[in-house]
C-alpha cells in the first residue's frame, strides 16, 4: 500500500514536468513511444533476470514462470530508481541513434570502419580490444532487437542500484532476504565491469590515446565508440553524451563537439550525420572550445579562452 502511494505521489509531482515536456517540445525522439516502451521493456527484462536468479536461489521448481510472475512489480520498482531509469533511457537513445545511423548512413551497428581498421592493425592490444568490442556490440544489437539488456552489462553503479532494489523488494521476509543475498552473490560473481560493452568502448578510446580524435567521427567510429570518445574528450558522463544526441539537446551536442576540439567543418559534418535536417545556429563558429566547456559545465567563461 505504502509503496503504491509513494509511487502515486511521485507520478503526481512529476506530472507537470512530463506533460509540459511532451506538449512543448518538438522533440519526439527523447520521449517517443518507442523510447518509452524500450525503457519499460528493458526494465522488465532486468526484473526477469534478477527474478530468475532469485527463484533459482530459492529453489523454485519453475524458476522462469516464477520470475515472470514478479517481473511486473519489480520492474516498477526499478523504474522508480533514477540511476536505473536514466541509464536505460540513455541506452535506448543510443540504440535509436545506432539504428538511424544504419538506416541513413549505412553504418553497421557492430562493425564500424574504425573497428575494422583496428582489428586488422599490428598492435595486439587494440586489435584484441576491437575484437572484444565487436562481439560485445553484436550481442548488444541482438539484445536490443529483443528489447532486452543483460544485467551484467550495466555499469557498476546501476547494477548496485538494481541489487539494492531487489534487497528492498524482499525486505521483511527472512527466507527471501537470504535467497536475495545468494542471488546477489551469484550476480556479483558473474560481473566484471571491464567486460561490459560500454567499458570496452571506453577502454578502446583510452587505448587509442591521441588517435582517439579519429573516434570523434560517428560514421567512422560507429555510435558506441563515438559516444565514448566524446565523453572522454569532454569529461562528460557517457550517458549524458548519449542523451545529447536527441533532438532537444542540439545545443549540448554542438557544444560538446566544440569542447572536444573539433573544427567548424568537422562539427558540421557530425551534426549533419546525426541530425541531417538541422543547421547549426548562427555565430556558432565563433565559439571557442574553452567557452563551450564553460557553458557545458555551467561555470564562468574560462579566461584563457584556449581552443
Amino acid at each position, binding site marked *: 500500500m505504502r509503496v503504491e502511494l509513494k509511487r502515486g505521489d511521485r507520478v503526481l509531482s512529476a506530472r507537470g514536468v512530463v506533460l509540459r515536456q511532451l506538449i512543448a517540445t518538438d522533440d519526439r525522439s527523447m520521449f517517443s513511444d518507442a523510447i518509452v516502451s524500450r525503457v519499460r521493456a528493458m526494465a522488465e527484462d532486468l526484473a526477469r533476470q534478477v527474478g530468475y536468479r532469485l527463484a533459482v536461489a530459492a529453489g523454485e521448481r519453475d524458476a522462469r514462470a516464477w520470475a515472470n510472475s514478479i517481473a511486473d512489480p519489480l520492474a516498477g520498482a526499478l523504474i522508480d530508481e533514477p540511476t536505473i531509469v536514466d541509464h536505460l533511457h540513455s541506452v535506448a537513445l543510443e540504440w535509436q541513434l545506432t539504428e538511424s545511423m544504419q538506416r541513413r548512413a549505412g553504418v553497421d551497428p557492430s562493425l564500424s570502419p574504425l573497428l575494422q581498421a583496428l582489428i586488422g592493425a599490428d598492435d*595486439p*592490444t587494440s586489435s584484441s580490444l576491437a575484437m572484444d568490442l565487436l562481439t560485445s556490440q553484436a550481442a548488444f544489437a541482438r539484445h536490443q532487437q529483443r528489447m532486452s539488456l543483460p544485467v551484467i552489462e550495466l555499469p*557498476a*553503479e546501476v*547494477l*548496485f542500484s538494481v541489487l539494492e532494489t531487489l534487497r528492498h523488494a524482499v525486505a521483511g521476509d527472512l527466507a527471501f532476504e537470504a535467497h536475495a543475498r545468494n542471488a546477489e552473490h551469484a550476480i*556479483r560473481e558473474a*560481473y*566484471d*565491469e*571491464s*567486460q*561490459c560493452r560500454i*567499458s570496452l568502448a*571506453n*577502454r578502446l*578510446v*583510452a*587505448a587509442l*590515446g591521441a588517435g582517439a580524435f579519429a573516434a570523434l567521427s560517428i560514421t567512422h567510429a560507429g555510435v558506441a565508440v563515438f559516444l565514448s570518445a566524446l565523453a*572522454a574528450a569532454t*569529461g562528460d558522463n557517457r550517458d549524458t553524451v548519449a542523451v545529447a544526441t536527441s533532438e532537444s539537446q542540439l545545443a549540448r551536442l554542438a557544444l560538446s563537439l566544440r569542447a572536444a576540439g573539433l573544427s567548424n567543418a568537422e562539427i558540421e559534418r557530425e551534426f549533419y550525420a546525426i541530425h541531417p535536417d538541422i543547421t547549426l545556429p548562427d555565430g556558432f563558429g565563433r565559439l571557442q572550445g574553452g567557452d563551450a566547456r564553460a557553458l557545458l559545465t555551467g561555470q564562468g567563461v574560462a579566461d584563457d579562452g584556449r581552443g
Partner: protein
Amino acid sequence: MAGADAIVDDAALEPLVARSDMADRLISADVPLARLQRACGGEIPGLIAAPDLLELVRKARGFGMRLGRPLAMRHAQGRLEGWAEVVPDAEGCTIRLSDWHAIESEAAPTSLPDEETRLAVENLLAEAMIWLDEGQRVLACETQAPDLAVLSQRVIGHRGAHWTTLFDFGNSDDVPAVWQARRGAKLAIEGSTRPWHLLLTSGSGGFRLLLRPLADFGEDEDGEADLLPPNLLRDELGPAMHGPVRRIIRQAEAIRDRMAGPLPREYREYAQDIVRAGKHLRELADELGDAEAIEHGIMEIAVEPVRISEIVDSACRILQGRADARRITLMAEQTALVAMVDRRRTLQILLNIVGNAIDYGPADSTVSVTTGQIGDMAELRVEDEGHALSPEDRIRIFDKFERLGRSGDSGSGLGLYIALMLARAMGGTVEAQAAEGGGNSFRITLPLA
C-alpha cells in the same frame, strides 16, 4: 632526474599490479604505482594516496564488484594513466593498470636545481655506492674505504635481497627505513667507527645508495640541544621546510580548486583545511627561530583584541581530522571573552597543546577546551583523559627538546617550549596540572583586552 619539461617516461604492455587491504591501504605495488603513491605523499603500506584510485577501490569494495574504468592519476611531477581494473576479495583488492602511460612533467622548476645540486654534492662526497635494481634489491657495491670492507662483503652475501637487510636501523622509529633513506638517514655501519649518512636516489632503471661519512662534515644531525648552532632553527630548518610546505599548500589548493576534476564537497573542505593549516605551518617555518628570538627579547608580538572563541574554533577545526582519526571527541566551550593577544601566536599555542592532547591521549576519549576569567586574565583549560604526568614531568615537559622519552617523527620537542615562551611574551603563561578525575590539564592564561 629529468629536465623540467621531460615528457613520456614509460609506457608498457605489461599491466601494473598492486594490492590493497580491507582498510584501502596499499600493501604492495609495481614501481610506477609505488612511485605515484610516494609522489602523492603516501607510503607503502599506507592509505592509497591518489584520490581517484582510492575512490575506485572503495567503490569496488563497497559494491563488491569487479570494476573496470579509465583512470588518470596526477601528482606534483606528472601523471600516471591507463585502464584500471579493481577486483575485490576477502582481504582487499587487486588493482591492475593496463595500457598505462607514466608521464613526468611539471617538476617544480624552482626546487629542481636545489635537488640536483644536493645530489651532485652527495655523489661527490660519497665514499661508497651501492647499486639496486628496480625492486630496491642489492646488485653491487663499490667502495675504497677500508672500514667499509665488511659492508662490501655483506653486499656480496645479500645480493638479491632488499637493501634494508644490509643495515641495522634500530627499531624505535615508526618511519620505514626506505623513507628515512629517501630524505637521507644517519646510521652506523658494521666494521666502521665513523657515523654514516645514507641517501637513496633513483637512477635509470633502478636505485642507488650513496654513503658518505658524517664526521667529515662536522655535523651531528640529531645532537643534543647544546650542540645545535644557536641559529639553526631560523637559518637552516626554516628555509629547508619552506619547499615541502609550499608544495603541500600548492597541491591542496589544486584539490580545493578541483583542478583535476569534480570532487565531493567534503573533500573540498578538507583541502581547504589543509591549505589553511599548510599556510600556518609555512608562516611558522619561516619564523621557527623566533623561539630563540623570544629568549633574547627581540620577538615581535602584535597584540590586538581577539575573541577567544574564534581562536579555539580555528584550532578545533584544524585538528578535527587528527581527532577523528583517533576517535577523540573535541569539545570546545563558547565564550564572549576578548583577549589582548597575537592571534597567530595564540592559535599556535592552542594547536600545540590540543594537538598533544589528541596525539598522546587514549583513543575514544574526549579532549575539552574550557574558558574562564580570573581577575584580568582569561584562562583556557585543555583537558584530556590520558595518563597523568608525574609532578616532575609536568615541569620538565616545557623544557626545550624534551620529549619525555618519546621517539618517532611526531614532534621536535619544541612545541610546548615555544608555547610557553609565546604565552609569556604576551603576558600570560602555560602550565600543566593534574586534571580532576585523572588526565592532564593544561592551563593557559592570557591578558584580557
